[in-house]
């Protein structure tokens, strides 16, 4: 059966067809669509595959590990920075090993189309000493999912699968199986000597995992996803990984004259790389992300071949690759094209018309005019756009939850007023622990939880803490006198500005919750209601 699928959708279908029992994830571009596809899948419904969003990537990873512990197959999905959030359980899942197959799917974002950085998840695979797979196209992504689960169950290790934006969010026709294979049965094979990481056991596991590395490398050498394609001209050899392989093939529609080593499985296949460096005078490394392969190939010692790539300027050091960069590196002239039009101006994203965050920033800015040294620590979500004109309201945005904790640190340093603005989903993701710190120390900060009842930037997914925020804040020890809930609409400006002013002047922890549904999800719900009423 053929289907036109996004890379993300191919991964999701592949996991279902591989006998998945649960997907655990937090929304994050460009990985969000994987879980959404499974949520919409009739087979997933029929098989009762777990498919609800987790509060953050760490809880997702740990829950998936629990499912694997019981012998069933689990998939964890996240964007690249999400792997930072679940690094603890991820690395230690390499130590415990797995029972049921466990695949960790990370979607990197070179050129940061929608992220704070362009970190390369392949380093994490190496760091945790587990195999990493990097499909080059949508068909490979689908096929690799079953291989990943099988590999995981063979090696008893989690498998990291890494994709990037341009494949995750690109559609192609994919050949999929007619039937999904069955899920695993529950079993009690997990041994405490693997799963209880007391030092005595952990040391043994570490020795086992370390000793397994040569096997993982041999598997990469033998992998059908790593191909050495010889060429006539041995002056140059090209190593191309993931989607960089596509850009290379785009340059040579009639076939590449130079030897090509396609890498889609790690650890890097040293034997195949040595063949190329022995054979060729120059080796160009084309990889999407940071110079992960290039650095390892070049090493410290001079080798036989001269290595060229991102570190030598043939390819750009930062940002995503594209066919034009490859052409330039290979000395292939571009055909004629138009010059850029100088009259075109940038059109940055903006908060939607009618968005509640707009009213929050309007109120906040009005009050903070009275406090010229005020600092507003922002966070990750649609409201990050409050940095742009006309609001220019925030002074920092670093990572999920940093608004509250940075505000507290700034306050510890003597800053006043120290204001934090955070969204509802980000608050439950990693704001609660920071708020607890602040309350325990009676920090002088004002926290605004701008609650639009959804995880908006990624497309409006369910938010873990909806209807629970007041109880959470009180449960953490916040005084009811300094917990205020407001409705962010223009006519409430006097009430809202008064609340903000009052809480800034209270020298302890305050939480203000402006609450109004996101315009996008509101419209969607109204449409659904209309459609339901018609029936």
């Amino acid at each position, binding site marked *: 059966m053929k289907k036109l699928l996004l890379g993300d959708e191919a991964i999701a279908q592949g996991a279902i067809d591989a006998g998945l029992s649960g997907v655990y994830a937090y929304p994050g*571009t460009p990985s969000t669509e994987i879980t959404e596809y499974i949520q919409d899948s009739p087979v997933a419904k029929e098989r009762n595959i777990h498919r609800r969003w987790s509060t953050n990537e760490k809880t997702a990873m740990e829950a998936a590990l629990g499912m694997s512990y019981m012998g069933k197959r689990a998939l964890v999905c996240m964007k690249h920075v999400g792997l930072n959030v679940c690094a603890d359980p991820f690395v230690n899942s390499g130590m415990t090993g797995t029972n049921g197959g466990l695949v960790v799917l990370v979607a990197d974002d070179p050129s940061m189309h929608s992220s704070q950085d362009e970190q390369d998840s392949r380093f994490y695979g190496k760091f945790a000493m587990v195999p990493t797979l990097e499909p080059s196209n949508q068909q490979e992504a689908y096929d690799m999912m079953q291989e990943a689960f099988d590999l995981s169950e063979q090696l008893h290790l989690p498998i990291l699968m890494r994709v990037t934006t341009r494949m995750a*969010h690109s559609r192609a026709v994919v050949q999929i199986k007619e039937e999904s294979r069955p899920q695993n049965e529950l079993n009690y094979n997990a041994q405490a000597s693997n799963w209880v990481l007391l030092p005595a056991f952990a040391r043994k596991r570490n020795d086992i995992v370390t000793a397994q590395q040569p096997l993982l490398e041999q598997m990469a050498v033998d992998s059908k996803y790593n191909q050495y394609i010889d060429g006539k001209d041995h002056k140059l050899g090209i190593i191309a990984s993931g*989607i960089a392989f596509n*850009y290379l093939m*785009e340059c040579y529609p009639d076939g590449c004259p130079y030897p090509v080593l396609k890498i889609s499985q790690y650890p890097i296949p040293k034997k195949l790389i040595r063949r190329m460096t022995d054979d060729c005078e120059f080796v160009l490394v084309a990889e999407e992300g940071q110079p992960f392969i290039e650095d390892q190939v070049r090493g410290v010692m001079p080798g036989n071949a001269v290595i060229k790539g991102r570190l030598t300027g043939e390819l750009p050091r930062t940002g995503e690759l594209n066919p034009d960069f490859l052409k330039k590196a290979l000395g292939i002239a571009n055909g004629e094209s138009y010059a850029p039009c100088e009259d075109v*101006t940038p059109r940055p*994203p903006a908060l939607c018309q009618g968005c509640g965050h707009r009213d929050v920033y309007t109120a906040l800015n009005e009050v903070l005019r009275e406090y010229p040294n005020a600092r507003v620590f922002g966070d990750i979500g649609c409201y990050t756009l409050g940095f742009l004109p006309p609001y220019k309201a925030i002074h920092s945005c670093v990572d999920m939850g940093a608004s509250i904790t940075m505000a507290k640190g700034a306050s510890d340093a003597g800053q006043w007023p120290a204001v934090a603005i955070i969204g509802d989903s980000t608050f439950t993701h990693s704001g609660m622990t920071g708020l607890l710190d602040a309350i325990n120390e009676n920090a002088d900060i004002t926290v605004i939880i701008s609650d639009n009842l959804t995880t908006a930037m990624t497309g409006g997914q369910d938010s873990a803490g909806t209807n629970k925020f007041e109880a959470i804040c009180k449960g953490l020890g916040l005084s009811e006198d300094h917990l205020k809930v407001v409705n962010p609409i223009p006519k409430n400006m006097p009430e809202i500005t008064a609340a903000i002013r009052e809480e800034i002047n209270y020298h302890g922890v305050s939480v203000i919750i402006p609450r109004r549904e996101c315009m996008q999800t509101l419209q969607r719900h109204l449409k659904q209601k209309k459609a339901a009423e018609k029936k």
Partner: protein
Amino acid sequence: MKTDIILCGVGGQGILSIATIIGEAAMKENLYIKQAEVHGMSQRGGDVQSNLRISSNPIASDLIPLGGADVIISMEPMEALRYLPFLSKDGWIITSSAPFVNIPNYPDIETIKADLNKVKNVIVLDIEQAAKDNGVPRSANVILLGAAQKALGIEYDKLEDAIRRVFGRKGEAIVEANIKALAIGREAQK
């Protein structure tokens, strides 16, 4: 055959719906397809674009090289010009004429129109007005598609079939509105 298409506009204008129709038609013809798009922050009123490649031979790159696009289909005139370096010298720009002014420094529309007229092959249509005039206000994007049909290398009736399949579950009224819009587009580009 091969057609490399850049679809562009402002977030929310319905560009991806056009891409879906073309993709559906191409798949029925057993053509190879790759369609890349950017989600997330790009959608919030910012510029959006999709690289859509269709071919009778396997396609390598999801992204179109500079000077490689055969057509730029744009819901917004300035956005069409943003991708000018990707257009082949003989390529076509088919664009809406109505500026979407959601930024303070939007250039003078006459400058934009002049820049568009410098392009060898260009069609500029007031699709919003045409949509209103013909009672299909929500199908301006499909009018644009109708105007672009010749440049796409896909037969007209194949696009019509694709519209029926794509919009089928939304009901007969919506299907007919879009079929009508496609025809208006075809008429307009003559």
